């Protein structure tokens, strides 16, 4: 039973830790993508952002 309790606690902590890491990855990913987009955008223009059409996969 103590082993089950150990797996229970480790499991919940592990999933939250994993998802917290994913959260940080998403945040970092957005930051890096934003920087790259800003560098690629011509001076004076805002960084490109996905349009609804692009998000739907339409040209």
């Amino acid at each position, binding site marked *: 039973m103590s082993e*089950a309790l150990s*797996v229970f606690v480790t*499991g919940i902590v592990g999933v939250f830790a994993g*998802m*917290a890491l994913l959260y940080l990855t998403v945040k*970092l990913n*957005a930051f890096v*993508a934003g920087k790259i*987009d800003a560098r690629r955008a011509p001076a004076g223009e805002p960084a490109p952002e*996905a349009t609804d059409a692009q998000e739907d996969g339409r040209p």
Partner: protein
Amino acid sequence: MIDGLHSLLFQSGFLHMTLGMLVMWVIAFVLIYLAIAKEFEPLLLLPIGFGILLANLPLSDLMEPGQGLLWRFYHHGIQWEVIPPLIFLGLGALTDFRPMLANPRLIFLGAAAQGGVYVTFFVAHAAGMSLDQAASIGIIGGADGPTTIYLTSKLAPELLGSAAVAAYSYMALVPIIQPPIMKGLTTKAERVIRMKKGRKPSNLEVILFPLAATIVVVLLVPPAAALISMLMLGNLFREAKVVERLTKASQNELLNIVTIFLGLPVGATMNADTFLRPQAISIFLLGLVAFAVSTACGVLLAKGMNLVSKDKINPLIGAAGVSAVPMSARVVHKVGSEADKKNYLLMYAMGPNVAGVIGTVIAAGVFLTLLR
């Protein structure tokens, strides 16, 4: 001639039928009926039901180790861990992670919804199941069929049929199981909360995400590499927009083909001798507990986040943290629109919904890390 007829009669299946097989036929016909007449997860329950019927036809030897056709599907497809990752490839090609990327804090709702997995794991073990069996039952709460099959085939293959049928049955019953829990844990005022619109992730961001997520999740839980890598590869196909043929093949032909080769052998593992035991009923009951607790954990965490967050979350979307995509997100939208017709929750609910898929994979990876 008489001897020949005598021999034919004794080598036919009729004289080898058992009561247990007839009971399994009834179960097979019920699943086939639900799939066809009620459209309950028909893509899986139909081949599973037919697989059950085939496994309970005497002397057919379809599941004879080393010889039977369905055994070969089972051995090379599931035991060799080929089919569940291929299903994930197709799912990745169908999944849009933008709702999650637009509002990253919703990721935690996908984590909370794994609470039912671990609560049920503990309860199942307390009820007398081994740790491996308890993990295979608990993962049903993640509402992710391929992950349930993947984990169960590794930890407790003797429970594969029951766990898979329970997982897909409860996924089909999302519109019935989740609403009472969601309504019971929220007030009308909470159900009408309108959420702030998230930002639009750029194209570069959605292309980089599957690469980054693969690295992070595989580093964290290496045993989940097969599932998460295929999920993210499929998503990279989709978002890169340069391999249209591969994307379409993953979404359609490949996914459809492997679905057939997944359902049939899973059903065929359910023969009367292994299935008709009190344990099977326990699996279905505990699976329901897992699913209900997962739903409740998601809703409760959303309420908890509202205590500390300026931008309020409609707690109903916490229920979408279970990874029944997109069914649970649709249910959230429906329950939300009952309280406020103009509150469009679907896209918000898709955030925790797709996060829940990753959360269930991590939960399975944690089990494999700790128990293997």
